[in-house]
């Protein structure tokens, strides 16, 4: 584990009767790209603003770089923030915006000007210094906000939904740039987002939050493949659920009977909650494959009927009703050349693997 830069211990926040943060305990490492992911109102922004110093926790301990932050106001914390609206000062130029935080810096004016130019270059805005801030596009404002925060050499950069105001293309471009920038400066980035794809693409670790609590904290792959609860599984990507029953506990896992799929042996890792009795089994659409004429399943297969076809160009989504199950399951197929798209009502076979299943309460 890297050296901890932010330590949260049972942090609680009340707004009157509203319990916004219900005991957050976690550690964020130095140089980590850490995301807070969750639906609106889950407390992720409150947590970010608490770290920044804009909100005081009602109780609990917050340490940044080993120092207790109780009573330390936002303007002296070693954190800087990129705001959702970017908060570019409209009456100042790009240069004045980027150099805003250097006002009390003892360096000479020339040194400061050089630092401003370096940071403009770093975010790809070389030559934009004299422009009026209000004449910038969304993506450019974003870059100014980044340069303005990074110029103060914070230990942690806080990003509050920084990409939500951009269009899809721009957003994807900025995702890549943010990752590059984070590697270049090497400091901790904490990103707040409600976009699961964004979090998966960018983060080293993701904390999924619901109702003021961290539901799961893991690296993107673990989070996607082995969600700890149905709530997390539902929030990140698509997951199919089928009713199942635990038949027995074996030395290295479980034996379950899944509706529509039959018996399967799962490892302990596939059941993070160790449920028993009536349970649900979940699996991602891409872990299922349609078997065409003459094809054989590598592992297991189950028969069904195509109920709905949704064509996406590069992909086709099928809703398939497996024999003996009322609700259809969704699966996705890449439209590789020569592979026909099936019609509704086609009888088919679906290949699956017990290793891709996750057991839920």
């Amino acid at each position, binding site marked *: 584990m890297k050296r901890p830069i932010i330590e949260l211990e049972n942090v609680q926040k009340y707004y009157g009767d509203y319990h916004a943060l219900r005991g957050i305990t976690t550690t964020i490492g130095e140089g980590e790209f850490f995301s807070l992911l969750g639906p609106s109102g889950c407390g992720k922004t409150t947590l970010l603003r608490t770290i920044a110093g804009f909100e*005081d926790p009602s109780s609990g301990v917050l340490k940044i770089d080993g120092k207790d932050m*109780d*009573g330390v*106001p936002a303007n002296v914390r070693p954190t800087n923030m990129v705001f959702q609206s970017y908060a570019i000062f409209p009456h100042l130029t790009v240069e004045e915006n980027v150099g805003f935080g250097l006002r009390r810096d003892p360096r000479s004016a020339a040194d400061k000007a050089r630092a401003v130019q370096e940071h403009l270059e770093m975010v790809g805005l070389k030559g934009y210094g004299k422009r009026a801030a209000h004449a910038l596009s969304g993506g450019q404002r974003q870059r100014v906000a980044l340069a303005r925060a990074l110029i103060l050499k914070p230990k942690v950069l806080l990003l509050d939904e920084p990409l939500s105001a951009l269009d899809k293309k721009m957003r994807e471009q900025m995702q890549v740039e943010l990752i590059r920038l984070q590697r270049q400066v090497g400091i901790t980035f904490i990103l707040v987002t409600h976009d699961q794809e964004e979090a998966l693409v960018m983060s080293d670790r993701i904390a999924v939050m619901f109702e003021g609590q961290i539901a799961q904290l893991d690296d993107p792959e673990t989070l996607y493949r082995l969600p700890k609860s149905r709530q997390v599984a539902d929030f990140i990507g698509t997951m199919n659920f089928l009713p199942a029953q635990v038949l027995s506990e074996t030395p290295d896992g479980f034996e379950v009977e899944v509706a529509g799929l039959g018996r399967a042996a799962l490892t302990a890792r596939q059941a993070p909650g160790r449920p028993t009795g009536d349970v649900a089994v979940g699996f991602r659409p891409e872990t299922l494959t349609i078997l065409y004429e003459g094809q054989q399943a590598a592992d297991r297969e189950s028969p069904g009927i195509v109920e709905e076809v949704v064509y996406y160009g590069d992909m086709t989504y099928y809703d398939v009703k497996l024999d003996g199950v009322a609700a259809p399951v969704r699966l996705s197929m890449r439209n590789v050349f020569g592979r026909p798209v099936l019609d509704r009502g086609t009888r088919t076979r679906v290949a699956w693997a017990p290793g891709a299943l996750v057991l839920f309460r």
Partner: protein
Amino acid sequence: MANRLHRLGRSEAANGLVLVSPPAIFAVLLLAAPLGLLFLYSFLTDGYLTILWEFTFQNYRDAWSDPLVRTVMLRSLGVSMMVTAITVLLAFPVAYFVSFHVRPDRKSLWLFLITIPFWTSYLIRVFLWKVILGYNGVLNSGLLGLGLIDEPLTFILYNVNAVVITLAHAYAPFAILPIFVALEKIDRSLLEAGRDLGESDLMTFWRVTLPLSMSGVVAAVLIVFIPTIGDYVTPQLVGGPEGRMVANIIHLQYLRLDNYPAGSAIAVSAMVMVTAISLLFLFLNRRFLRGRK
């Protein structure tokens, strides 16, 4: 402890109260306290040039038993109501026009044009109505010139009519602005929905636009009705003896007769009446809106 203080210093409520305190203290000292004193005066006894601290209802009894005061009070109410009705009725189509038929970038210009006369030299504007409505005034000479009348009209100056016309002119922008604001807030797709659901333009106006702009109309009514009742200049200049309003008697009691308790009692009576009527209006309006839902 230092931390607690620090937190208190940063709390929302404390910051807000500290900030608002200078104007609030000013308003308490120079508005709330004087109004309280006015109320108090109205129950004290006039001792000719001094005020005696003897509690009495006599001022109110005097005011309301004096036929002159009673006439003027009722006249003021009547004038205010008439002015309010005329102003709001005339203003609504203008507000509607600016909100619905003027290009968005021109709206500010229209509002500016509408508000300018309101800010400019109230006294002189009132005086000019005298010129317009007078015996040899603009209106009479115009009508005579056109041959529409044979001799000058005399019923338009130095009476209640003149007061109503002049006040309706003075308070016009006050009525237009709130209605305009309410109309602007109406989501235009609601009107399209109304028409899409088969209503005619007129019925859409009646069932959608008007109810949604009611808040603006109510604001316009109150913002015109309440101040007009206390207008002094207009009745003084164009009202003549039979156009006197309550402000003129208050002025008389205060500055000419130096009878503060009597003046205060009249002022308080007028304010109580205005407040009561405004509340009644609000209540009826709420009933009306609820009845429609």
